[in-house]
């Protein structure tokens, strides 16, 4: 197959990273005062805004109410200017519906929903700029937003996309790598217990390589969690200074 060389003989990737290195992660918590929780996260050039409302009473149809836990409602959207070509992106298209569903499943596994019966938690994420690993970045941003909202979780949920090139797993794919014919896998992890919240993969891969790939994804997720943890602690420190505690 024709294509660019994703991993050079010296072990460099297209953007100069090594196989296991993550993109640079930058994040801020509490970017909007109106919402209960919010976060902005950059992972390389993928930039995401996540906003959380809740837990609050059920809105809309009451029939969805669950009597033992909270309902999580996720909505994923991409800005028209998020890709190289401007494109109108109506709500509710197939791709974003699927993504919303994945996010919902991920957070149902992490948020302690049983503490808030008959209520609802809304998570909205918007991709401002897309450069690969959209799902994972959304998960990471949403985690921060949920934490900012003060909703109890079992653990951070950290996600990372990994790909498999030349028998080597590549961590945290960028767009050029994702579109370069790599079989990629997205994994969301609760890092402390090592539980997997979600694995998603729709490419072909020999089953013997799967273990190595998941191993690499786990390591990458743990790396992400370290960064997120630092961000949260930093934020907490700033907040406590401001409130004078």
């Amino acid at each position, binding site marked *: 197959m*024709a294509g*660019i*060389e994703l991993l*050079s*003989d*010296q072990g*460099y990737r*297209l*953007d*100069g*990273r090594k196989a296991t*290195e993550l*993109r*640079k992660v930058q994040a801020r918590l509490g970017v909007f005062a109106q919402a209960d929780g919010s976060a902005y996260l950059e992972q*390389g*050039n993928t930039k995401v805004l996540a906003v959380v409302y809740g837990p609050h009473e059920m809105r809309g149809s009451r029939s969805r109410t669950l009597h033992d836990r909270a309902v999580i409602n996720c909505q994923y959207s991409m800005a028209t200017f998020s890709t*190289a*070509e401007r494109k109108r992106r109506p709500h509710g298209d197939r791709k974003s519906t699927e993504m919303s569903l994945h996010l919902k499943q991920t957070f149902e596994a992490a948020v302690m929903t049983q503490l808030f019966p008959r209520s609802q938690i809304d998570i909205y994420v918007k991709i401002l700029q897309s*450069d690969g690993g959209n799902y994972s970045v959304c998960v990471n941003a949403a985690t921060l937003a949920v934490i900012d909202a003060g909703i109890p979780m079992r653990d951070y949920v950290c996600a990372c996309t990994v790909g498999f090139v*030349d*028998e080597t797993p590549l961590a945290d794919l*960028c767009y*050029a790598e994702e579109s370069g014919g790599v079989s990629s896998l997205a994994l969301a992890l609760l890092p402390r217990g090592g539980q997997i919240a979600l694995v998603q993969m729709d490419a072909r891969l*020999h089953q*013997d390589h799967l273990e190595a790939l998941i191993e690499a994804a786990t390591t990458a997720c743990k790396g992400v969690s370290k960064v997120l943890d630092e961000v949260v602690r930093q934020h907490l420190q700033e907040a406590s200074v401001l409130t004078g505690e």
Partner: protein
Amino acid sequence: MIKTEKILHLKSYRGRRVRVVREHYLRERVPCFSSLCQAACANDGKVLPGDLTHYVVPGVEVVVNFLEILEFRELQGVIFTQTACQALQSKGRRCYSRLRNLVKDPRHDCVLFANEFQEHSYRPREKGESHEQWQTRCVYEAAVWYYNHLAGMMSIVMVTEDEDVVSRFSNLNSGVFVVTFKDYLQNFWPDLQAAHELYGSISQALQEKESEDTQKEFCEHLPTEVLAAGIKSGRYIQGILNVSKHRAQNEAFVANDDISNKNSDLIGGVLVYGVRNRNRAVHGDSVVLELLPRSEWRGKVTALTEGPVDERTGGDSESKPMPTGRVVGVLQRNWRDYVVTFPPREGTQSRNSQRILVIPWDRRIPKIRISTQQADVLQDHRVVVRIDSWESTSLYPSGHSVRVLGRAGELETEVQTILIENCIHVPPFSEAQLREMPSTSATKPWTVDPVQVSKRRDLRETHLVFSIDPRGCEDVDDTLSVRRLPGGSLLELGVHIADVTHFVSEGSLTDLEARSRATTYYLADRRYDMLPAVLSADLCSLLGGVDRYAMSVLWELDVQTMAVAKVWFGRTLIRSSYQLHYELAQALLNGEEAEVPELAQLASEERDGKLAELVEALETLTHVARHLRAQRDCGGALELEGVEVRAQLDEKRNITALVPRQPLEVHETVAECMIYANHWVARKIQEVFPYQALLRRHPPPRQELFGQLVDTAQARGFSIDTSTNKALADSLNRAVDPRDPLVNRLLRMMATQAMSQAVYFSTGSEPEDQFFHYGLALDRYTHFTSPIRRYADMVVHRLLTAALATEQGAEPVEAPAGNKEMEELAEHINNKNRAAQRAQNLSIGLFQCLFFKERDPETDPRCVAGAVIYSIRDNGVLVFVPEYGVKGPVYLKNKEGQVVSVGPDGTCEWQSGSVQRHSDHIRTTSACGSATFRLFDHITVRVSVLSSSCHSDTLNMEVISNKPHRSSSTPQQVSSQGRNQLVQEVVRLAEEAQKETRKPKLSREEREFRQSKTPNLYSLLEEIRELSLLDPETEPRPPEGTQVDT
């Protein structure tokens, strides 16, 4: 750790210009790969030595245009920059992979520096700066970085092609010099004449390219994206262009890569008719085709055409139309070095003496236009050229010359031509390689290392080890042992193979050389060894009476059932007691009186005892082998090829082979043990390394290829069942004409041709049901038993060693290569094996031609021989000459339209008339009556040489009588003698000719390349096997059996 930076790219995608933002990470530490490094860079792999006068950093345009010169091993301390590397990548993947291989190859003193990822050497592109300027600046900054990084201890030279760059940068920094490539070569490498010539030739070709006129001769190729989309949608077809050897002007075929998803029409391949439809594609290129409308489809020509003059005449008949297409794009050029001949000076070319159209030796390659000043000197010389490009404005591709081989027609030139045409590169072993070898001499012989003795299982005292090989064999790589274990119910069979990998460690220079050669090359008069002679003929050769390291497989077999009770693999120390040859072993088995050289000195009593011991071992071995054979036969092992070879061996050894189907059993015995060892090793390594073991598979043949065989056999009333390998073997055994043993032989040859080729592969890249070996009827097979002359066996040895280490729980010293690497290696070895095969056939053809060239066909009785018809064509027949082992066409209708008419006494002459072709015979009608030629008819032909100045000579056969040749009743003896003499005689003549013409300088040089000049018996056997198996028209399909049993 990492600092992030962003760069902006403007890229056009689907016609639109799009702004793409990409990240770009820079880092502090990028390895510099220099031994002078002060900063403790992580320099693993090869490093540039510190004792050079300078390092050279070639600029982008130098790398792109003059990579060939940078490939000279004499140039040391070359630093390729990532910037240049990327520029090369955009030029084509082939160029890029050449650079990659160059950097990987430890024999070349060059490294790749990732300058764009280094914090200090990276420069972002500035506004308004052209891409070329930016690249130059990047390379210059890399050079400066090196100078600073090495603390000024090494001067850096940046070479470029642009004078402006020289003036702009040369004074900015002391210690970093900027010079043009020409100056660089002249000042630093004044002695490297070859590089200067190459430089001149390339730059001339580049200038020519610029001044090209703009008249279009061909359609432009479509852009890659369009091609990719077209292939995906099924509109275009992708495949490798294969130009017809006989009608190179017009016919080319593209075999379809993936038959499964295409309609059934395309299974037979697609025809590309004419030069214009071929659209500048050259034989071997990977092309994209568009099918023409069905109305324009045509068939291929089935009539025999005569040699180089290839003009179509109106009345040629064609087969039924087949899919026809035209080339719309080339995905991957597959150009290699071509040998060309400068044409004799004629009026037509004198107008512009600098641009010459040269004629490639390979007929499938179009003429190449090159520019040179030396056209006069090089007349009638063979020269190596490379193609640079083929613009749509030019009828011919343009290229440049690389090196001169010598005058056409001389033996050395022709042999070198054969090697280069098959991409075989066999320089003499370098001193550095020989230094790696353990030393041994007559005064201070090599001895076993006590450390090794303690590590290895010592079989010197316990086992009776012996070898059975062809007479006079130097490189003994396999030995055998067999004994009864105490208790009586178990036998122990042992196969001991030379432990080559003990001496050749992975990644050493010798290993790399062996890897690039992949096999020992046997030509008609010489041999190019894969390993240096000190290994292949001495230390690794399991000679009699000396201690040697071995890799052994020992089975414990049940005496009655031959079921395997236990297998042991491992490294051993052996001392071969007897070095037997096949005849001797067979004589001992038959109970005949035979002189065993090893026992000649002993007293008679002792001798008898030892002899009895040896004979008993041989008998047991034979017994075991019979059982193993029977086991495989049940699975349907194909007897086919084995018989062929044995028949040939019989011939060779002048055993009056009245019944060619009764070979020496001992051959089969040895072969069977080797097959068994190979099989068990294959099982072992596949179990331990399920995805990266190197195995060998033989896919079942495609049924449609058996068409000719079945039809031909039908003509004699035999039916051939090709449904399974067993059915095929059985029906071939039945197809024996008692009056004419040649019938069966010819049928077997055709069957062999229909076979697909056995290939090496890595187990990770094929599904498990494809591992099967059709010919041997084994589920897994590999090559283990000849590490001296096959690289694949060395790989298998290493795999086995690693497997054993893994099993014992120890971490293997070095993890075996991954699946991808192994697959690449397998592909490489397969290619080299094919090349070796082709080179061997060509060299045999060459010697045949040289032999007949010396003789006058009209008078010399040796030019008249008996022949058998084995195929019928429109205007002639294909015949096989058993005496010389030659196959070829015989025309019954010549170009003037005359046909062969047969007189009452059987003599033939040309008369006007007509030819009718039928399925099993061809009839000529003329004024004198009509004559019929049937399949398997014996006729008499005269052999002469059709010489050609630009291509290889070919043998021409002409029918002179439709009666069998009078002496053809005893062809067997004649041929064996004739063959041997033939080679010797030609060598002698060539040497005489050289003496007369005061040895030209070139051929003396070539002579040094020769590594072993005398033809050994093995090569002769191999050669004879080839002769009778190969049809000059088709690709060689070597039989498996012979590759196994030696």
